[in-house]
């Protein structure tokens, strides 16, 4: 390991360092504001480090475990930006609740570190390490409000299922290793291209099970609504974006090596998963009355859409995935951001009734939430529309017509429940006052994050050109 390796690794090192620093500072003196500020500064510095130290060196293989190429840096940047938003939203959310707050930030930083490692990993060892750092931090984060029953329940559910899926993953890796004798993605790909043996097939299947759980695609989606509902709102935002996004980046890197289009059984498998996720996610969301649960099922469907782009061949697929993930990050963070700022001390604002007639009390917040929901539904002038367009574009470019048509049908179904929330926002007569959860004014930090997200949403929806250019520049290189 040389010095330039360390320089290239700067973003990850900074993250780890910040986590330790916050821990030490907390050990000396508990101060919520200080912990939050340190976290935000640390993440921002790590983000800047990507641009300053890592980018000039990219692409760089740092040990066999990690690669910091443009692809990895793009996703690490995305993960960091999202974590920053979550950290800023968490501060006013946690303030005034019982219990200690500082550890929350340490866990958040560690989870972010795990995600960043995932985005850059090219080896089973780093893959598994990253995944476990992420998962273990999430167990604690999900169950963070210790007095909430639902939260504890969600944490335990996540723990059991994540542990089971990690076991699958490990077993799969072991089988692959037994067959090929290597744990590097690129070499596995070469081996898989020949006639795959039984171990290899079984190993791949188990790895898909493990990843499928993290991505919450059908049929590994059962945990999603409960965890989304039980976890505190900022953590839900984190689970929905950072955790899924980084795993998806890894999935894409891993399977791009194995040329998916030519390997029919895998292609078929992913197609089935994609179609099932799109339909089941959207259909089950129709039955929900809890906003967090609705968004949980909607995220299952969105991962299904992403898989369509994942299956598209050529450079278009990864580009569509990248654009969609960014749009999805912005939108999901925005939606959960609104839930976060509206949540009270006793419980999160997750019942549909909490939103009835919100229009009258806080028009700007309602406008933001509407924009986010319309973006999730893929309505023009929002980022979600361009993202969905990009996916259909990639799908049509690879002539995946069945998948594209399923996407069309599924997203038409999806409109129902987004519109139901929007309808509730503007519903009600002036006499029927809703019972506000937290009528304290929305904090400045919350407002700021939501405003930035809203601007991004519209900007990506109206003039995505610079961003498309950036993505094209990054993804025209081989991953």
């Amino acid at each position, binding site marked *: 390991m040389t010095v330039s390796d360390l320089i290239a690794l700067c973003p990850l090192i900074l993250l780890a360092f910040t986590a330790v620093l916050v821990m030490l500072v907390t050990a000396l003196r508990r101060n919520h504001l200080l912990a939050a500020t340190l976290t935000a500064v640390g993440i921002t510095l790590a983000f800047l480090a990507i641009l300053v130290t890592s980018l000039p060196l990219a692409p760089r293989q740092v040990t066999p475990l990690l690669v910091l190429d443009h692809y990895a840096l793009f996703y690490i940047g995305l993960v960091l930006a999202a974590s920053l938003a979550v950290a800023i939203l968490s501060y006013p959310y946690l303030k005034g609740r019982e219990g200690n707050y500082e550890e929350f930030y340490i866990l958040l930083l560690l989870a972010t570190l795990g995600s960043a490692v995932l985005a850059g990993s090219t080896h089973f060892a780093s893959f598994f390490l990253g995944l476990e750092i992420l998962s273990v931090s999430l167990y604690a984060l999900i169950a963070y409000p210790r007095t909430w029953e639902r939260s504890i329940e969600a944490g335990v559910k996540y723990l059991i299922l994540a542990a089971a899926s990690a076991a699958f993953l490990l077993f799969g890796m072991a089988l692959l290793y037994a067959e090929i004798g290597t744990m590097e993605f690129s070499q596995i790909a070469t081996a898989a291209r020949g006639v795959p043996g039984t171990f290899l097939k079984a190993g791949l299947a188990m790895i898909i099970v493990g990843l499928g759980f993290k991505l919450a695609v059908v049929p590994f989606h059962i945990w999603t609504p409960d965890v989304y509902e039980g976890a505190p709102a900022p953590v839900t935002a984190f689970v929905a974006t950072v955790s899924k996004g980084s795993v998806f980046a890894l999935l894409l890197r891993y399977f791009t090596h194995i040329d998916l289009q030519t390997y029919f059984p895998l292609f078929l498998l992913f197609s089935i998963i994609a179609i099932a996720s799109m339909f089941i996610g959207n259909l089950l969301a129709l039955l929900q009355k809890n906003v967090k649960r609705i968004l949980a099922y909607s995220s299952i469907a969105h991962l299904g859409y992403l898989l369509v782009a994942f299956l598209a061949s050529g450079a278009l697929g990864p580009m569509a995935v990248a654009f969609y993930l960014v749009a999805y990050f912005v939108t999901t963070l925005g939606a959960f951001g609104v839930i976060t700022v509206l949540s009270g001390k006793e419980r999160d604002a997750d019942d549909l009734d909490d939103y009835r007639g919100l*229009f009258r009390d806080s028009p700007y917040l309602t406008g933001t939430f509407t924009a986010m929901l*319309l973006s999730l539904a893929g*309505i*023009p*002038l929002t980022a979600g*529309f361009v993202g969905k*367009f990009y996916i*259909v*574009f990639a799908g*049509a*470019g690879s*002539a995946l*017509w069945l998948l*594209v*048509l399923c996407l*069309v*049908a599924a*997203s*038409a179904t999806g*409109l*129902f429940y987004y*519109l139901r929330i929007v*309808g509730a926002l*503007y*519903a009600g*007569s*002036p006499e029927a006052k809703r019972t506000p959860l937290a009528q304290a004014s929305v904090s400045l930090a919350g407002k700021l994050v939501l405003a930035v997200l809203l601007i991004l949403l519209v900007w990506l929806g109206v*003039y*995505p*050109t610079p961003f*498309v*250019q950036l993505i*094209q520049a990054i993804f025209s290189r081989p991953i």
Partner: protein
Amino acid sequence: MMLLWLILILAVAGVLSWLSERWNSKLPRWISLMAPTITLVLVLILWRRHLGQMGLTQNQQWLAEIDWKWIPQLGIGFHLGIDGLSLLLVLLTAFLGILAVVSSWTEIRERIGFFYFNLMWVLAGIIGVFLALDLFLFYVFWEMMLVPMYFLIAFWGHENRVYASLKFFLFTQASGLLMLATILGLYFVHGRNTGVYTFDYGHLLGTSMAPSTALWLMSGFFIAFAVKLPAVPVHTWLPDAHTEAPTAGSIVLAGLLLKTGAYGLLRFVIPLFPGVSSQFAPVAMILGVIGILYGAILAFAQTDLKRLVAYTSVSHMGFVLLGVFAWNSLALQGAIMQIICHGISTGTLFFLVGALQERIRTRDMNRMGGFWSTMPRMGGVMLFFALASLGLPGLGNFVGEFLVLNGAYQAHAGLTALAAIGFVFATIYSLWIIHRVFHGSKAEYPPLPDLLVRELAVTGVMIAALVWLGLNPQIILKTSQSALHNLQQSAILTQKGTMSSPGVDFNRARATPAQAKVARSAERPFGQGGMP
């Protein structure tokens, strides 16, 4: 730049009316009244500048054009253009926009700012649809007019608004997404053939492709536009949406939104896929005739006045479908005439029904009757528009339907004969409205105020417009002439381009005499059919 203004003025006015509600609850109305008026004036200036003795004086295809880069990496441009056809439709949009604002003057009492925001954005989206020359941009506008329309129905509609708005949204959104998929299909077919990946309408015209591909792509477009039009099997959203929408919503729906479907057929389906379209024409024409008859019969069976008017739209738009797919100059001219006159007459009918509903709080015709004695002015105006709707000679609608039948007769005599029966039904239901509402046994109501000055002024303008169009249809015909000519030309060019491939030759050989006739009349030099 001027074209951008047409859209921007409305969009900005929408935002302004939303914001201005804070200061004064009357302000949104005035702002929203101003915006379509300014748009109307702008378009009138453009029209006046280009309207010559024989038609539009123009050097190139578009009277005005904007072609900016938008997302060049994907071949997407911000390309707007206006020709005679678009101009007439934009004119109609601004005109009916004013009517819609006036109709909601007193009807809307809550969330006024947000209401006008939505109304303005629907109008902006519709104008965008009429101007877009890039298929991606077209799709953006197509969707942009959808969401505010949904809000209009869902938040300010009548009793059953939630169901109606969802049905409307699902039908149009699903068909819209299907259209997006086919737009992309066309994009990739064109890109693979020529190496130029673009969504630009001008480039995509003349794309050659295998007939089976063309059939798939065409049906995607056709379904999307048929839902909006609406053609018969996919019309079921319309009665619900029209009935439950607030008056302004019904006016915009019937007067403008339906027209975007007709416009799509004219601008995109046939010029882009002339070969399969001519093959498909008999089916579309049959659907049109079914629409004419079925809509008229169902209209007669309604007891809900608004629903009745909604079904007459199905019937009248059947004429448009018939005319468009007859694809000869007479029928096309007729279809455009019909589009405009139906927009005005049905828009005003909805306005009147809305005014009536505001007075008696019901749309049930069983609870109406004998209003002539209390509201003679409303009765007279309603009678006028009922007569216009049944196609009384001397009014614009007659010219439209007559030309459509005249043109369609050349394409298919049998279907035209059936379609003509629609006139009889139209007479029955139109007079039925007058009979049930204004004559007969008197319904018990406290004294009802007759049409107010504001309402009289607006309906008076509409009456004048219809009479003027009926007596002087030439102005519409000559405005749209060159645009239609261009459309027909590009269709022929595209067809010639595809003829080199063996598949189409095979199809042409199988074409029935009627289709060959359609093709022939399309290729005939413009104007030989004889202008009235």
